Structures are given as C-alpha cells and as structure tokens.
C-alpha cells in the first residue's frame, strides 16, 4: 500500500506544482466574479447568474484541469523517464494507474475547492443583497463585501505564492493554491458572519448554499471519468492526439455533462438530493475502472 501512496502523493504534488491548475482555478474564480458583477449591475438580475456561473465554471475549468494535467503529467513522465523508474520497482501497472489517478483527482479537487468557496460567497452576496433590498428597500448590504472577498481570494493567494517562492523557496503554485483555499474559506465564513450581523434572513441563504453542494458534487463524477480517459489515452498517444480524443469523448458525454437541468431544479427552489449525487458517483465507477484497466493494458504492452 505504501508504494501506491507514494505514487499518489507524487502525482498530487506534480499536479499542484503545475501552474496550469492554478491558472485554471483562478480563471474560474474570475469568470464567476466578473459574470455575476456584470449581470447584476447591468440587469439587476438576482443570484441565479452567480449560481449558473459557479456551476458552469467549476465543470468547464475543472474538466480542462483534469484532462490537461493528466496528459501533461503522463507524457512528462514518459519523456523524462520517471515512468520507467517507477515501473522498474515492484508496482503493478494497474496499481500505478489507479494511484496516479487518485493523486491527480485529489489535487484537482484541492485546486477547485477555492472556486467553490468563491462561488458560494458570490451567491451569498447576490442573494443576501436581494433579500436585504426586498426587506428594507435599501441598496444591497452584502453584495459589495462578497465581491471584495471573492476578489481577495484571487489576488491574495497569487501575491502570497510569489512571496513564498521569493523568500522561502516554496513552490509557487502549491503555496498559492493552499493560500487560496484558506483565504476563500475564511472569506466565506466572514461573509456569513457579516450577513448574520446585518440581520439578513439567514435561513434562506443557508438553504441556498446547502442546495448548491450536492449540485457541485454531481459535477465531479464526469470530471473523474474524463481524467481517467485522458490518462489512459496519454499512455499510448502524444499530447495533441490525447487531447483530441478527450475532446471527442467529451462531446459524446455532453448530454451527461449539462448542468442546465441542475440549474432548473435549483431555480425552482428544489434541491438535488445527495443520494442522486451518490448514484452518479457510483455510475461513474465502472467507467473510471474501465479506463484505468485500459491504461494499465496500454502500459503493459508498451516498451519503455
């Protein structure tokens, strides 16, 4: 088991060290903030735009991160020879594929946890603003702090990562990701506290945030399938061919990826049951296992 833990840890560290993941998560946060700000100030739209932007950004950017991080890492391992080194030890091909996938997917989730907190902050701000405006007829109280908190979740980690890299020789992308997680979580908690102290109708806000969580969890299984597919393809094909195959596969999966139905459900005040998210995760397991087995078979046949 220690062998596979080592492989998973190295894969996670490799994924987190790659600035691509940070770039994509920062882009996702920026899209959520900008789309929501533009929409609310331009059209006075309610929190629905923030919710849709959060769901779409997480799905699109996280899928891109999972696919491209998988491909870059595997091709990098093949070209640099570290794959040879790992497989010259007593690890099975399937175990190697599974451990590497687990590490990569865990790193993707860690990279995108700040995006979730940022999205929740923006939703809270937009919704609390709407409620506050409806209650008092005043301008929204929480919207401004929510945008400030989300912007801080983008800028502070980048500056902190750069400072850690400059003064402590720490890895820029890893430090920035960890810092983004801390700043976005603290910002969200502070915003909740601020909204509560502003005597805004909290139960409604809480239920809206809680309704988002299973919807977000529902986005993870297709991303996991895509990551496993990208890994399997890249054991056999080059970067461009693997990316193209993933694109084709993604188009075939599009009906399953659409979060339109989720948004509709949430917009009508309904919630996605956790059991449904669990069912989706269970349904994705055979696909992930099939791609891991395909990756192992391609590795087995590969002369290194």
């Amino acid at each position, binding site marked *: 088991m220690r062998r596979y833990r080592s492989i998973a840890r*190295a894969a996670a560290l490799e994924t987190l*060290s790659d600035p691509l993941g940070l770039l994509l998560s920062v882009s996702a946060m920026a899209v959520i903030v900008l789309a929501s700000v533009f929409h609310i100030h331009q059209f006075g739209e309610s929190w629905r735009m923030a919710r849709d932007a959060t769901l779409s950004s997480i799905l699109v950017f996280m899928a891109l991160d999972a696919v491209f991080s998988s491909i870059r890492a595997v091709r990098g391992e093949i070209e640099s*020879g*570290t794959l040879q080194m790992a497989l*010259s*030890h*007593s*690890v099975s091909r399937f175990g190697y594929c599974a451990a590497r996938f687990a590490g990569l997917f865990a790193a993707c989730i860690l990279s995108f946890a700040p995006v979730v907190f940022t999205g929740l902050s923006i939703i809270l701000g937009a919704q609390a603003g709407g409620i506050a405006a409806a209650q008092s007829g005043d301008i929204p109280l929480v919207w401004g702090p929510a945008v400030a908190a989300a912007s801080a979740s983008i800028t502070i980690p980048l500056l902190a990562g750069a400072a850690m890299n400059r003064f402590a020789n720490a890895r820029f992308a890893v430090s920035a990701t960890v810092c983004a997680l801390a700043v976005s979580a603290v910002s969200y908690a502070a915003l909740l506290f601020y909204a509560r102290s502003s005597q805004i109708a909290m139960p409604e806000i809480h239920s809206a945030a809680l309704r988002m969580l299973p919807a977000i969890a529902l986005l993870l299984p297709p991303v996991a399938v895509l990551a496993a597919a990208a890994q399997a393809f890249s054991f056999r094909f080059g970067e461009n061919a693997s990316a193209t195959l993933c694109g084709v596969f993604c188009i075939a999966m599009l009906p399953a990826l659409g979060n339109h139905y989720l948004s509709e459900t949430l917009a009508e005040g309904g919630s996605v049951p956790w059991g449904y998210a669990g069912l989706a995760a269970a349904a994705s397991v055979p696909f992930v296992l099939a791609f891991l087995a395909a990756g192992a078979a391609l590795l087995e046949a590969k002369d290194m």
Partner: protein
Amino acid sequence: MEYALAVDNVRKTYRDFWMRPTVHAVKGVSFSVRAGEVFGLLGPNGSGKSTTIKMILGLVRPDGGSISVFGRSPRTVEARRSVGYLPELSYMHPFLTARETLSYYAGLCDLDRKTARMRIAQLLEMTGLQDAADRPVGGYSKGMARRVAMASALVGKPGLLVMDEPTSGLDPVSTSEVKTLVKTLSAAGMTIVMSSHLLADAQDVCDTVVILNRGEKAAEGRIADMGSSLEEYFLAKVGDARNFKVAEFLA
C-alpha cells in the same frame, strides 16, 4: 550454482505503429550472472545493451526466450522487489527535492517511515548531498543528479543492482567515486550488472563480461582471462574502428 540472473536466448525486435519491424535490437542473447558478481554488459553504441537491461527490468517485453531474476520472471511484481536500477540518464521529477525524491523511491520500495528516514539520511551523507537535500533536483548539476539517481537505486538495498552506463558523462573524480562504490557494494555481497562502452571502467570493476555486437553475443568470459588489454580483446571481437575517409572528404 546459484544464479541471480539468467538470460536465455532472448530476442527483441522493435516495431512501428503498424507493427512493421524497424530494428532487430537483440538476437538470441544468453548469459547468466552468479550472486555477488559484478557483471559487465559491454558493446558499442546500438549493440543492444540498453534493450537487454530493460528486458531484465521488465520494462521491455522480449519477443522470445526467457529471463529469470532470482528464479522469477522480471514481469512479476515479486521479482522487481529485489532489483535496483540506475538508468543511463538521471530520470527524476524536477519539482521534487533530493530528500523528497529518495522518500518517493523509499515508498516504492515499501520501506516504513522510520527505516526510510534513516536510510535517506545515510544515503544523503554517503552521496554528499546533505546541503542540497532540500533543493529541487531540477536545478542540480549532472554529477549531483547522478548521485541522487544512485541513492534512489540503493534506497531499497536491492539484491541485484542494474546500472546502465553508470559512468557515462561523468568527470574523472565522479567516475572514480562510482567505481569505488561498485567495488564496495560488491564486497558487501550485492550482485551488480552494469552496461558500459567504457572498457577501462569495466576492466576496473567487473568480474565477468559479455560483449554484445549488433544484438548478438560476440564474446563472454572472465576479465582475468581476457589478457592485459580489454580494449584489444574487445576490438578483436567487435571489429576495428570505422576508418572515416576524412582525407577524401576534405579534398
């Protein structure tokens, strides 16, 4: 006779995407290595040394013949448990530090945390890398990277150490360090298989050698039986150096 490694009539042909043969890399090579021996796999560039080594490690599947490492096929996970590998180029994750690299390989060798920490400290001291242990290996010089690769190969205390061109590209001091290390490990009972095209290095450390040429075994024997000059013996078996027609070209 106890053999650590037995290679019997192995063949390997590399093929392109459409499975058409491109290179006949190894054509029916056989040899065996006794436990505790330093065995040299010699030959000019392109003679099939690296392919043979990769087949011994289970990284390349032979088209025919058989290989046994401590009685098991190298494609099995169990056989690779007792094998350490030093590749020709120092393959490492550039984002990991030397300590993290060794910790990674200690994990792959299934060492528990306490043993791993102790061995990593010993290996860092042995290779003189304590001061640079927490710097990413991507910024290391070739010699330093080679020392990390050597430490990585040894972290699991393998019974069989396979070294592909261990002194290739190293300066004389580093080359001498590697040769001393090979002799020390051999004296401690480790079986070592090394490939090289540097005959002086092989002559200094090997007990037995096989000379490969164009994928075939050209000669095999103990170094002591090959006369005073391994180079003369090698050229006699492999053929004289190519005579480039430089004068004609320049004219």
